[in-house]
């Protein structure tokens, strides 16, 4: 498999990379659950969760800029929690507004907002670390041993295999559209262009996009037929077989056990410090 720019995996050699995918999957899920169960305002616990994350990130030798850049993904959603600052009853700590329109920010509101923002930021970082340090086949194996139906795992595996092929195809379609449009260019990364930056009117653009989506689907249906023939030729009989997952090593078990124990401890701490 070639390394695609979209592939979140960072191929490095580190203790975190070497950890078994199953234990990493369970630990990431446990971490996110712990963050979700931590009550708002339990700052020491958030600090500890963040330091755990930081320790894992440092150990994994992933550039912090990569994690930061990826974790910005969840930022836009924080907008949904902004009203929390204003609508909670409690003492005022400040206000925002223009002229006569003043919105009071209350202390409990601020605590709640910051907690939600922190929680989501911490959780996203844990997920980023998981996918950055675990190659896709490992994650698939992890899913399989966590009792996800094997058929579903096989579909996801095949999807991943062709994801990059089809994403490349979509990029080629976009390039072709830009090349044929009256004004260049509207590459997918920089869509700040003016109204007319990608050719004709809105109807034209929609017609072209619809055609692109339609042809992409059509080509994939044909491709899936060829893939099926190729699989048949190689002896595929409808059953998806996979190798037995290797046993968890002692290191994996110790890490898994101590990690889960830590999460439990953090939950207890959270219930102590939380409001």
């Amino acid at each position: 498999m070639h390394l695609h720019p979209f592939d979140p995996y960072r191929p490095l050699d580190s203790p975190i990379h070497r950890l078994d995918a199953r234990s990493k999957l369970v630990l990431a899920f446990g971490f996110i659950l712990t963050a979700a169960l931590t009550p708002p305002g339990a700052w020491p616990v958030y600090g500890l969760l963040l330091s755990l994350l930081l320790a894992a990130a440092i150990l994994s030798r992933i550039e912090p800029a990569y994690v930061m850049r990826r974790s910005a993904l969840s930022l836009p959603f924080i907008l949904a929690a902004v009203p929390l600052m204003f609508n909670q009853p409690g003492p005022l700590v400040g206000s925002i507004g223009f002229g006569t329109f003043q919105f009071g920010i209350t202390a409990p509101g601020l605590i709640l907002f910051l907690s939600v923002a922190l929680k989501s930021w911490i959780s996203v970082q844990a997920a980023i670390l998981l996918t950055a340090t675990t190659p896709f086949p490992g994650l698939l194996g992890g899913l399989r041993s966590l009792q996800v139906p094997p058929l579903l795992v096989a579909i996801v595996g095949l999807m991943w295999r062709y994801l990059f092929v089809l994403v490349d195809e979509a990029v080629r379609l976009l390039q072709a559209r830009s090349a044929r449009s009256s004004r260049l260019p509207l590459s997918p990364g920089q869509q700040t262009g003016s109204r007319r930056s990608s050719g004709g009117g809105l109807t034209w653009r929609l017609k072209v996009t619809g055609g692109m989506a339609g042809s992409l689907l059509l080509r994939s249906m044909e491709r899936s037929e060829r893939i099926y023939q190729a699989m048949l030729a190689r002896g595929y009989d409808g059953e998806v077989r996979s190798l037995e997952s290797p046993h968890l090593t002692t290191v994996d078990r110790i890490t898994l056990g101590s990690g889960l124990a830590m999460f439990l401890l953090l939950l207890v701490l959270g219930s102590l410090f939380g409001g």
Partner: protein
Amino acid sequence: MNLYSPLRMHIPDGFLSVVLAAVFWVPSLIALSLALRHTGRQFSERLVPRMGVLAAAIFAAQMLNFSVIGGTSGHLLGASLATILLGPWAAVLVMACVVGVQALFFQDGGFLALGANLFNMAVVGVAVSYTVYRTVEKLSARRPWGILVGGFAAGWASIFMGSLAVGLQLALSGVSPANLVIPAMAGIHALIGVGEGLATGGALAFLAAVQSDLLRPTISSGGGADPGRVDRQPGWWIIGLVLALALAIASPLASSDPDGLQKVAEQQGFLERTAPPALRLFPDYLFPGMDDLALATILAGILGIGLVLGVVLLGAAFQRNGRITPDEHRARPPKHTG
């Protein structure tokens, strides 16, 4: 490259209350397991390549964006396109794969919130699309304009209803007041939905012109190459109708009476904010024998340093061991790229 969709329909972790997130896993998992069984029967051994490639195609189609007005751009979500072309069961499976992979590997949507995200996009999106498209198809008596109008209406409704579900979930979790988040989500997505609808209609028009048999429901076309699609599924039609009605009725009710919604949420246990903490071992949030909050904070700090130190030492320990991992059983995909 804008692979990570700006369409904020994917709820990240940290926003939904744990109870609510758990509750929404239930319908999603039921729908997913039923879909797996039905499509398995329908496509038999063709299931894995067909569903895998189509899920990848829907994922890739989400990259096809088009500028709308002044720098904003829309792009497909694909639930309605998948429903119309593949039938509701296969569409649930395909959308579940897309949403699941987005959450698990691209951090688009959270792990815990995945149940709710699956519900909004793979269950509500598909069921509503199916009901709307089938209804328009019936009304148009299968005339060609029915495909376009049905595609547009299904695309719009899937986005709009999904956004109502997101708004309700956020309001029930207490992270956003219902009278703000529901109208905001609905307003934005009523516009985004137009783009989805037009692109869905455009894709259907293209397919109708190029390969019209894809859109004509057939009983079975030779060895089950494309059996089914939008064949009669009265169950799905009713589910879509019920979901759409429930969302359309609950949303304005909730946004006109946010306090009532909060009360409901508290009664159902979605909001643990107002409930006493489950684990209150020590009174007044302090360690026993310690009457100072600052001291307790310092203790927590020391504990934290210990925890981090432990992690680092543990890491160092098995760096030293330098164990050789058994080569991850790389499930080699067929070399044939098709």
